[in-house]
């Protein structure tokens, strides 16, 4: 089991929306270890796409902004239809995650053969997370355990490694941020095997400024509820 061979067979999907300040360095960091990085530019108005491309990423461009969930699904579709990648890593473009964590998670999924490995900030270290966010994430975690029946230690963490089987099971319908809950519920409904891996998250001034407002949790709840009530599409 050669770790670098596993990294060569892995596709890293980086959903990007107006991240020109960070995406170049994030992609450069990823490209030092991963051969295939695909950046899904979700209708950015800045130079994100060009920067990502210059840094060595394949760029898929949404002509209009759809949301992070839609961008991830585009990356998943690309992985399934246009590559023979054995694993897919999801990695945020704002520099909150460490490439070394992603590598460790790919090694873990190779060793254990599970379908999906989820990053957990609660097993790892979180730097500079605001207090209100911590309270909110604890509530979100209880809610997500209740809904899915899966005993996760963290929820809505953007760093994940999926096997090809898991990618095929996703088919995300939530365009916005509720996709993270959707991924968790797919784990339950498709009976995917999973592991968690500690990750270090760096809440920098940049990521705090760019990131979601806490009130967005209400939107996520609404999206999930309306999807649940609605007729199967």
């Amino acid at each position, binding site marked *: 089991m050669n770790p670098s061979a596993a990294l060569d067979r892995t596709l890293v999907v980086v959903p990007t929306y107006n991240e020109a300040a960070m995406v170049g360095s994030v992609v450069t960091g990823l490209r030092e270890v991963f051969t295939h990085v695909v950046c*899904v530019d979700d209708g950015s108005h800045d130079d994100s796409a060009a920067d990502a491309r210059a840094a060595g990423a394949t*760029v898929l461009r949404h002509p209009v902004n759809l949301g992070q969930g839609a961008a991830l699904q585009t990356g998943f579709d690309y992985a399934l239809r*246009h590559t023979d990648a054995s694993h897919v890593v999801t990695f945020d473009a704002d520099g909150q995650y460490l490439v070394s964590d992603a590598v460790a998670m790919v090694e873990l999924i190779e060793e254990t053969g599970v379908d999906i490995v989820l990053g957990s900030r609660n097993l790892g270290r979180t730097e500079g997370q605001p207090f209100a966010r911590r309270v909110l994430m604890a509530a979100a975690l209880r809610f997500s355990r209740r809904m899915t029946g899966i005993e996760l230690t963290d929820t809505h963490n953007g760093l994940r490694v999926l096997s090809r089987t898991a990618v095929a099971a996703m088919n995300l319908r939530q365009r916005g941020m509720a996709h993270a809950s959707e991924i968790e519920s797919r784990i339950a409904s498709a009976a995917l095997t999973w592991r968690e891996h500690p990750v270090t998250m760096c809440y920098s001034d940049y990521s705090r400024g760019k990131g979601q407002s806490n009130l967005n949790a209400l939107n996520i709840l609404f999206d999930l509820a309306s999807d649940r009530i609605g007729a199967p599409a």
Partner: protein
Amino acid sequence: MIIRVFLLASIVLAVVWLLRTRPSGTRLAVMRVAGFLVAAGAAASVIAPGLVTDAAHLVGVREGPNLILYVLVVVFVFTTIVQSLRMRDLERRLAQVVRAQALAGAKPPAAVDTGR
């Protein structure tokens, strides 16, 4: 009293029916018939305002204009739900189109273009 049952039941039924069924020919037909009924009622109320008052008394509402308000509330709830469902469906289709275009126009890393 009858009006309360009627109003609550129609709101609940409308919401459940709209959310649980998929858009189909039947649903479209039902919606159009309902639309014509509302239009006919509106026309009748213009021609013979007394009818509205009679109808109001029949279902236990004191005055005609109150009945009109109630009916309008039901129509409004109905319309809002239909529009939001339609919007959601459109957004889903938009996502499919956008995704197809993104996949068709995948750009390889810049280094591959200029290099080798």
